[in-house]
């Protein structure tokens, strides 16, 4: 029960953070990504502000034996750089660059889009969810950044050890 409240509360905090920082606005993201144009460096301050908290605090948290309300930390177990990781990141980068939306803002922007009458946001977020669903169907496994006990990594993925 407590864990559910924590999820709701931290989600709310996350939503406020996305809105306050201006990251819900894809025009602003594109302004950052457009380094050759009228560059808007705001995203540096957003990432910087977040890393200012997570950078020092997360290593301290992970040195604890377990989280306060759960049995264990649920962390990714894979360590190698494989084509899925880099290929996925590249595909995401193309989509992000075309639209200015990444997953968090795409969810948060649904609210101002609903209130302000912007169906384009629903088109994007709907397509994004479809893309996630498609991945689940094609791979037949719940690939995720959350942890897996038995990684179904292809044998080829063990080659990268840099």
């Amino acid at each position: 029960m407590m864990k559910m409240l924590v999820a709701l509360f931290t989600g709310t905090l996350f939503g406020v953070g996305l809105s306050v920082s201006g990251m819900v606005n894809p025009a602003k993201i594109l302004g950052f990504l457009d380094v050759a144009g009228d560059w808007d460096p705001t995203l540096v301050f957003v990432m910087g502000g977040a890393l200012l908290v997570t950078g020092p605090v997360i290593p301290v948290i992970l040195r604890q034996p377990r989280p306060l309300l759960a049995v264990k930390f649920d962390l990714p177990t894979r360590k190698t750089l494989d084509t899925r990781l880099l290929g996925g990141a590249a595909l995401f980068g193309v989509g992000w660059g075309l639209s200015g939306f990444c997953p968090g803002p795409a969810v948060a922007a649904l609210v101002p889009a609903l209130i302000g009458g912007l169906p384009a946001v629903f088109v994007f977020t709907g397509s994004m969810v479809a893309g996630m669903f498609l991945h689940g169907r094609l791979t037949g496994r719940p690939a995720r950044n959350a942890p897996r006990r038995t990684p179904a990594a292809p044998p080829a993925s063990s080659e990268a050890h840099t």
Partner: protein
Amino acid sequence: MEDFTPISGLVGGLLLGSATVLLLWLNGRLAGISGIVGGILTPKSGDAGWRMLFVVGILLGSFVCTMVAGGRDLVQVQTSIPVLVGAGLLVGFGTRLGSGCTSGHGLCGLSRLSRRSVAATLVFFGVAMLTVFLVRHVL
């Protein structure tokens, strides 16, 4: 640079970082949005509830801010509908294939000094900048 908003950016970033830290400290979960949303679509037993509440929270937080801001010009979409469809599919598929997005790799992963996350973050920032360059200055 007339759109540059460093103060609200920094404050928003501190909030994002605080939410991430709290979720990990209390629930032992990483605040990676693509993983949280994707996990709702392919749930393991008893795992979908907190994910849905986190998403509801994002909507709630966004709602409060939209109300406070009066709802105008918070979101400006400059991309055509067909491109948005393709971009959405790429973002959804790509973040799942690559096991994370700006939050999971960019915030959580960098803070854990995960080699995979550092590599993924460099790739998606680099590719996104290249894409914007091609779209705005070449094509």
